[in-house]
C-alpha cells in the first residue's frame, strides 16, 4: 500500500493516468527494443566502421569521433569568470558609492580572485596533479584516450 502510494507520488502523471502512462511507455519502448535488436543482429555499418562489430570497436569509434571536451569546459569557465569580473568590479564600485550597503570590498576582491582562477582553471588542475601525483595531468580531455593497464 505504502509502495503504491509512493509510486503514485513519484509518477509524472496524476494517479488516474498511471495506466495511460504505462501503456505509452510500453508502446514506445517496444519498437525501440525491436529496432535495437535488429541493428545489433544485422551488424550495422556503424559497428563495422568502428573496427568490427564489437562493443570495444564501437566505443573506440564513439571516443575518436567525440568532441574536444577541454574546449567546452574552457568556454564555461570563461563565461563564469567574465560574469565574476563584472560582478567584482560592480561590488567595488557599489562599495565606494555606498560604504554601508550590502556590497563589501572583499566581495569584489574575492570575485576577481575566483575569476582569475577560472580563467586559469586548467593551470590549477595541472598544479593540483603535480601536487597529488607528482606528475603532469594525464586525463587531457582529448577526444580519444584510453586507460591502459599492463
Amino acid at each position, binding site marked *: 500500500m505504502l509502495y503504491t502510494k509512493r509510486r503514485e507520488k513519484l509518477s509524472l502523471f496524476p494517479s488516474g493516468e498511471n495506466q495511460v502512462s504505462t501503456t505509452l511507455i510500453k508502446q514506445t519502448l517496444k519498437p525501440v527494443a525491436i529496432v535495437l535488436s535488429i541493428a545489433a543482429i544485422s551488424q550495422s555499418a556503424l559497428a563495422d566502421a568502428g573496427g568490427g562489430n564489437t*562493443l*570495444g570497436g564501437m*566505443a*573506440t569509434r564513439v571516443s575518436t569521433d567525440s568532441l574536444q571536451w577541454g574546449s567546452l569546459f574552457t568556454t*564555461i569557465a570563461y563565461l563564469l569568470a567574465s560574469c565574476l569580473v563584472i560582478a567584482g568590479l560592480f561590488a567595488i564600485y557599489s562599495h565606494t558609492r555606498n560604504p554601508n550597503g550590502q556590497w563589501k570590498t572583499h566581495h569584489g576582491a574575492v570575485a576577481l580572485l575566483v575569476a582569475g582562477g577560472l580563467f586559469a582553471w586548467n593551470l590549477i588542475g595541472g598544479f593540483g596533479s603535480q601536487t597529488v601525483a607528482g606528475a*603532469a595531468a594525464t*586525463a587531457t580531455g582529448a577526444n580519444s*584516450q*584510453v586507460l591502459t*593497464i599492463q
Partner: protein
Amino acid sequence: MQGFVNLAVDIGHVILIMIPLICYLAGSGFIIGSLWSIYRITRGHGRERPWTPIVGIFIGSALFSFDQVLNAANATLGSSHTASMSGLTSYTADNVDPSNIVGITPQETWLNVITLFDPFFWAYGSAIVLWSLLEAKGQAQGHRRHSPSRIIVHFVFGVILLNTDVIAPAIMSHFSS
C-alpha cells in the same frame, strides 16, 4: 566460452575508454565548481562547508592523474601492474586460445581462466576505484548518507579486483600448502 570471454573483454575495453573521459569531465567539473563555491561561500550563499572546495580541487586533481593514483595503489599492494592513459588509435578484439585454458591441475586451470578475464577485472576494478573517488566528493559536499568507511572499502576492494591475478595465486597457495 570464447564468446563469453570476448564479450567480457569488450565490455572491459568500453569501460577503459570511458574512464579517462569520466575522469576529465568530473575533474574539470570539480575544479570549476570548487572555484565557484569559494565565491558562493564568501557571499554567504548555500550551506557548503568551508573546506568543501579544497576537497573538490584535491579530488579533481587526483582524477586528472587517475593512472598515477592507480599506480600508487598497485605499488602499495605489491603488484607489478602499471596504468597509463594514452591516445586511442584503434581496437582489435582479443581472441582466446583454447589450448591454453586447461592446466595440469585445477588450480592452474582456474588461474588460466582468471588470466583470460584479466582485461575485464582491470577495467572493473579501475571503475570501482574511480567510483570511490566520486563518492568521496559527494560525501564531502554532504550529498551522501554513508560513512567514509564505504569509500575506503570501495577503494581497497577496487584495487584488489584490479589485481585479481595477483591476489588469486596468493590465496590458492595459502589453501594448498
